[in-house]
């Protein structure tokens, strides 16, 4: 599903985010990216949805090298990749329903599909009955669930999560992880960057550890350290 081949990404001559990085993620896998701040985790995630392009190497997603993908094809790529962020990135002037529906609306899904899929995904993330609430009327955990629902409503092949539990208390974070695990169980590949040792240790999924832009560990059913 995902393959990086000798990827190098620099932001300047002094700052190299990734150095000659290679790894592969199979369809339906759940992978944690761990490592200290500045180790290259977020850059790696941004390479997967073509928010960034590497100087060297190839990034294969769903069978296509996306490094040289024409700009007009990138939206199609992104429709197959859901994104969850630490700060949720919800639209504050829209309700829960509208936030999730927005992801379908802007890619041209018809109204009957929206009215069918949005309630279903809100049910999945445990937000049934809260469709009409605005983000400021929700807890942090609920806001992150909305973010997950928005990322998953289009049934993407890959879900990218960048520190999704970073702003949440441990109990709420566990709830989000159970949700991501359920999504992963539907066949969606999940790649998640995190600093949360407790979560990584409890999930026992594949762990890729980065340090200063280099993979220093790639362990199946791994732990944080």
């Amino acid at each position, binding site marked *: 599903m995902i393959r990086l081949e000798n990827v190098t990404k620099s932001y300047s001559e002094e700052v190299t985010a990734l150095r000659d990085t290679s790894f592969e993620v199979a369809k339906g896998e759940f992978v944690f990216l761990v490592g200290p701040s500045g180790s290259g985790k977020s850059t790696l995630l941004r390479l997967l949805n073509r928010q960034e392009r590497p100087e060297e190497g190839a990034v294969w997603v769903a069978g296509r090298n996306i490094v040289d993908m024409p700009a007009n094809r990138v939206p199609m790529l992104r429709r197959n990749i859901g994104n969850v962020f630490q700060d949720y*990135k919800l639209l504050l002037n829209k309700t829960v329903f509208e936030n999730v529906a927005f992801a379908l609306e*802007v890619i*041209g899904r018809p*109204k009957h599909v929206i009215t069918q899929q949005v309630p279903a995904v809100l049910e999945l993330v445990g937000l049934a009955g809260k469709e009409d609430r605005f983000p400021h009327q929700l807890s942090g955990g609920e806001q992150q669930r909305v973010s997950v629902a928005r990322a998953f409503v289009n049934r993407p092949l890959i879900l990218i999560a960048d520190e999704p539990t970073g702003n949440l208390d441990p109990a709420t974070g566990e709830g989000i992880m159970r949700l991501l695990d359920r999504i992963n169980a539907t066949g969606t590949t999940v790649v998640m960057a995190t600093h949360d040792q407790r979560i990584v240790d409890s999930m026992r999924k594949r762990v890729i550890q980065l340090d200063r832009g280099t993979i220093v560990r790639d362990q199946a059913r791994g732990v944080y350290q």
Partner: protein
Amino acid sequence: MISRIAYVLRETAASFRRNLTLTAAAVITAAVSLLIFGLTLIIQHGFDNLLAQWEGGVEMIVHVNAGAGDAQRAVIEEALVQQEGITIESWRYCDVTCSLVDADRLLAGDPTTRQLLTAENITTQYKVVPMDATQVDILRGLRDRYLGLPNVNTVQLAEEQLDLISELQGFVSTYTTGLWIALMAAASLLIWNTIRTAMFARRREIEVMKLVGATDWFIRLPFMLEGLLHGLIGGVLASGALWFINDRWTAGVQGFPDNSGMTALVVVDGYQWQVALIILVFGSIVGTVGSGTAASRFLDV
């Protein structure tokens, strides 16, 4: 498709509401600049009316008494033919129909006088193109000679009317063109800035849209539509104002003396509707270009 159109219209309307003061400024600037653009076209057309009878290098017009038949005119034509290749390059006869058309344009602002002219009483014309228009003395000599011919009512020289009007036309044209270009640039920049502000206000939405796979065109479209509407609304306001000004001017010219030379300087032949259409199209283009460049430039907010 319907949901996309609904989305674009809804977002455009929302953006209008959010940026009301900036939108008003952009629309008013566009309206003023389009009004001056329209006035330039109308004034040019008025001057064209005024100079209509002198088109094609005509420097002298020999007016023939109404009712003069072919035999009476043969004397005049013989005199013209004698000078062909010497002082006259070419000449043509403007018959009753042709002379009435000229009168329509020359007396556009004076319908009362125009109504007095009929096929029976209008003078017909010989329009003369000289070999060398700068040889004023030769033209004056020809005028004096033709004035003595039978059935010649009067002889007009362009130098008496044309030079002053041409100079005035050039002056007005230069300054109004400069003014509307400057104002149009200001309107375009204001629209550009309004769209930039709108995009900045919605940067989070744009970021989310890009991440979920919306195409750049889909993101740009509401902003471009907003700019188009700025230009279009400005064009509608300018067209209304132009119609009002032209109407007042036309009414005012009717009160001028017949010999004031201003009776042709009005536009009443439907040209103002053409100008209104040009203004609407031009306003829409300027608005779309201004907003389109901003929407492309600031898509990566």
